[in-house]
């Protein structure tokens, strides 16, 4: 049997609340420490305890870490999902299961490995009875470690990290890992081809989830005020602020340079953040769709009164409560147009955990420079799952506190300033903040019509001129925003446009399209709204542009169509919202389907048709491509960046 090395997916089916996340994270971290590119995704229910939950791990030597729809190794620990789990094993794959689950094995095309999980835990005198279920999960870690070749020392390293070097839990869990591994060694024969072998690709990299990265980035951005209301999948961002702020920002005298307030609802969360932003603090809130809906009225006030504030939206799938624990990119048009009346939004779109960190600090600079709400649209997949990443990079620019006048500046202006006066011609006025002791510094902020001096007015002309200035301000802001990431391919005939967490699936799909179908694509990942000149150039350069996103409507495609109506016929929307992270298979097959109808498609039709059988085969079995990618997607992907 030929070995398949470092190229397969594992899925673990357990009961929610059974403590399997320690076990699954341990597998993930151990593979990462073996130097093999890896990703982990938690596919969990909206439930505290009892419902089925799954965790997928993908190891891939070429650095492709998007979710796959196929799993070669399935571990079944939950009687309620046993039949489904068994059916999901790829032909030729391996099925590990706790042998107390007494369901019939109905497959002959896979390797089957029963594990005496309960017995092994009971036999260990060091495991108290109330810890048996938790520690039982480490038995499958041990069995799997022996069967696919996970380095046991790396498992210890992972546990040491997880338990913060506390010896007692580390030893208890290591005992179960070893018991599982030894039992497997004595009792199981390897009948499947899937193995891991150490590499050196991930050394020097870190693992983080996007919410933690965003929180730490915000702290390095000088976050001073965080108000939030619990909501999945955004809570862990605010909680990470609570975790890291004391370590990073507490003064030696124990006093705080920041405040985190858990509000009574999202109305209050955004209200407090706007109040704090107005009074000169770097203020933020984090939420998801339902919370954002509640924040809408306040967002309009902040736009019109020109208050800096940062809002993180960790998207989950709606409408309404939707699937609260599943990912989505469906808040894009909502946020872009957020608020009644004529409004505009600055939206940042992080596509990696490193960008979550970067936009954490950058969002404050932009909010204070442009004096407006800045939205950071992450998603559940990015925010809550662990991703390999280059280490976080220290902010490349000093803080930009924007146009703020203190006592001295007001004195120098001899009081000759107006809160909404466009002195510099860039649409961005000067502001003062409470606590300024110069008697000429104050002004009255309002959401009602106001003139250049912030005085109430119902004058039509003044209102229109102010709205035109706001538009100018936003047009100018395009140049301040993060430029798109572009990956150009020599001889590319098509373009692909996307944003956020879908990049790994798209990069993998592009590789497959090139190798298996001869289709070469340029790729642009948009990192901010409103669109920059680069986006226009990219769309004009390509006859066929595929816009890939995780929502039903094709929302990025809608925005592009509005902004570039004369290019609308060149745009092909690849859009789906089912709550799952994107897979390369979905991107590739959707693109091929639409591609056939296009101009470039006709050119390559013969070639594409010839490869169709291959497509189907690949969908079910692992890719055995011998072609090496030039760049690991785990590394920096940009070839053109501002």
């Amino acid at each position, binding site marked *: 049997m030929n070995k398949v090395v470092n190229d397969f997916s594992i899925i673990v089916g357990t009961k929610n609340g059974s403590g399997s996340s320690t076990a699954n994270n341990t597998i993930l971290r151990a593979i990462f420490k073996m130097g093999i590119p890896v990703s982990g995704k938690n596919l969990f229910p909206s439930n505290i305890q009892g419902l089925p939950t799954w965790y997928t791990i993908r190891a891939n030597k070429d650095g492709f870490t998007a979710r796959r729809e196929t799993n070669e190794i399935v571990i079944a620990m939950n009687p309620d999902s046993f039949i489904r789990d068994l059916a999901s094993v790829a032909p030729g794959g391996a099925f590990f299961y706790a042998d107390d689950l007494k369901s019939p094995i109905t497959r002959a095309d896979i390797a089957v490995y029963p594990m005496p999980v309960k017995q092994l835990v009971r036999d260990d005198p060091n495991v108290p009875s109330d810890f048996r279920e938790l520690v039982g999960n480490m038995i499958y870690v041990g069995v799997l470690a022996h069967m696919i070749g996970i380095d046991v020392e790396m498992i210890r390293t992972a546990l040491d990290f997880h338990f913060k070097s506390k010896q007692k839990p580390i030893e208890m869990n290591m005992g179960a890992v070893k018991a599982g591994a030894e039992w497997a060694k004595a009792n199981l024969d390897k009948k499947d081809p899937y193995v891991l072998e150490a590499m050196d690709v991930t050394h020097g990299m870190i693992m983080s989830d996007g919410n933690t990265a965003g929180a730490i980035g915000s702290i390095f951005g000088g976050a001073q005020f965080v108000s939030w209301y619990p909501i999945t999948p955004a809570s862990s961002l605010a909680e990470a602020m609570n975790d*890291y702020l004391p370590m990073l920002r507490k003064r030696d005298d124990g006093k705080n340079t920041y405040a985190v307030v858990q509000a009574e609802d999202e109305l209050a969360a955004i*209200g407090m953040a706007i109040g704090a932003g107005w009074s000169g603090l770097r203020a933020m809130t984090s939420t998801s769709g339902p919370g954002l809906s509640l924040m809408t009225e306040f967002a309009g006030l902040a736009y019109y009164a020109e208050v800096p504030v940062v809002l993180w939206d960790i998207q989950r799938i709606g409408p309404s409560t939707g699937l609260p624990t599943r990912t989505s990119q469906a808040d894009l048009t909502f946020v872009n147009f957020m608020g009644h009346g004529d409004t505009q939004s600055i939206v940042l779109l992080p596509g990696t955990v490193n960008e979550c960190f970067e936009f954490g600090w950058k969002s404050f600079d932009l909010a204070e420079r442009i004096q407006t709400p800045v939205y950071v649209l992450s998603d559940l997949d990015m925010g809550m799952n662990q991703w390999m990443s280059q280490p976080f990079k220290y902010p490349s620019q000093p803080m930009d506190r924007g146009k703020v006048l203190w006592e001295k500046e007001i004195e120098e202006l001899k009081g000759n300033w107006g809160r909404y006066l466009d002195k510099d011609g860039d649409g961005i006025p000067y502001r003062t*903040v409470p606590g300024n002791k110069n008697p*000429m510094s104050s002004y009255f902020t309002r959401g009602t019509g106001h003139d250049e001096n912030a005085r109430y007015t119902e004058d039509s002309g003044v209102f229109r001129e102010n709205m035109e200035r706001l538009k100018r301000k936003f047009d100018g802001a395009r140049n301040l925003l993060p430029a798109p990431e572009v990956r150009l391919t020599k001889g590319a005939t098509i373009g692909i446009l996307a944003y956020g967490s879908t990049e790994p699936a798209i990069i993998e799909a592009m590789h497959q399209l090139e190798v298996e179908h001869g289709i070469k694509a340029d790729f642009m990942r948009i990192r901010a709204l409103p669109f920059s000149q680069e986006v226009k150039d990219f769309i004009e350069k390509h006859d066929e542009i595929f816009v890939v996103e995780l929502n039903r409507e094709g929302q990025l495609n809608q925005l592009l169509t509005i902004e570039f109506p004369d290019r609308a016929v060149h745009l092909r929307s690849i859009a789906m919202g089912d709550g799952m992270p994107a897979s390369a298979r979905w991107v590739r097959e959707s693109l091929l389907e639409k591609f056939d109808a296009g101009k470039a498609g006709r050119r390559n039709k013969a070639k594409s048709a010839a490869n169709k059988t291959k497509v189907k085969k690949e969908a079910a079995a692992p890719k055995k491509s011998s072609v090496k990618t030039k760049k690991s997607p785990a590394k920096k992907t940009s070839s053109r960046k501002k």
Partner: protein
Amino acid sequence: MTQPLPMTGAAANVNLAGLGKNDYKGNPTTLCQGCGHNSISNQIIAAMYEMSVLPENVIKFSGIGCSSKSPTYFMNRSFGFNSLHGRMPSIATGALFGDATLKGIGVSGDGDTASIGMGQFKHIMRRNVDMVYIIENNGVYGLTKGQFSATAEKGLALKKQGTNPYMPVDICMEAVITNATFVARSFAGNPKQVKELLKAAFAHKGIAVLDIISPCVTFNNQSNAYHSYAWGKDHEEPLHDITYIAPRSEIMLEEEMMEGEAREVAMHDGSVIILKNLDHDYDPTNRAEAIRILSEAQQNDWITTGLIYINKDKPTLEETYNLVDAPLNRLSESDLRPAPAMLEKVNALMF
């Protein structure tokens, strides 16, 4: 901006801050002539002038409604934020973190506080934010032309609205129940008491809820309406005669006042509130007693006024957060951005 600087060298009519009464003025009111709210704005001006408060040390807040317009009619030299309907508390909570040395004066109405804003009102009291929270309470929506508010009494009949079928919200009762640390009620027709209570509220550390019955002369001033001038004049039941004595002033009790006839409440800033007994002794530090007299007032349709409840010993929200001494909005990059070495430490933790 357009505010005049204080006149230098003008010795007459200036307070201890060196400011004249004009330094506390706002724009001319656009509310109706005779509106109770205008009288309250004037008392805020007088109280702040007499207390020698620097306008730059105050932030004005409001929500939406007639009452919420009034912060433009006093203290032009103070920053102000006229926010959203019912959302003044959250704006104030966040804004006061910017510089915890500043004091908030919020003006809301009965719709803004007891209808759309009830949730935020309850939570700002829970948090004990350091501000004066005034409710200009007239039982009616003025700007939208005369609908019932949540404090309108059951059975109130208004033009176009018919008869109010619901029980009213008692703002002071809500405040006492929610552990607000200063709760008072007054009547715009009793300006002296309004002013003294405003001073006491301003001297209080923490949330000071001041429910002022402030008649709407256009939509709800018929003599049988609870929130009318006529009803207030006939049914106001002051708990005591209240006098605020500023710090540094020598406390001179009236000679004829016998021991047991007055109560002194010493405030943290050195000021003293003298509560002269009227019918009987009332102890505003007794929460159960506060609830009892509010129930009694409800049963008898009285407007019981005065300092209903005070608890001086609870930390304010800002105090609970143990903030650095300098205002947070004056901190610079070196205070706010951790050093590069700290990022290396963080990266080492990311696994």
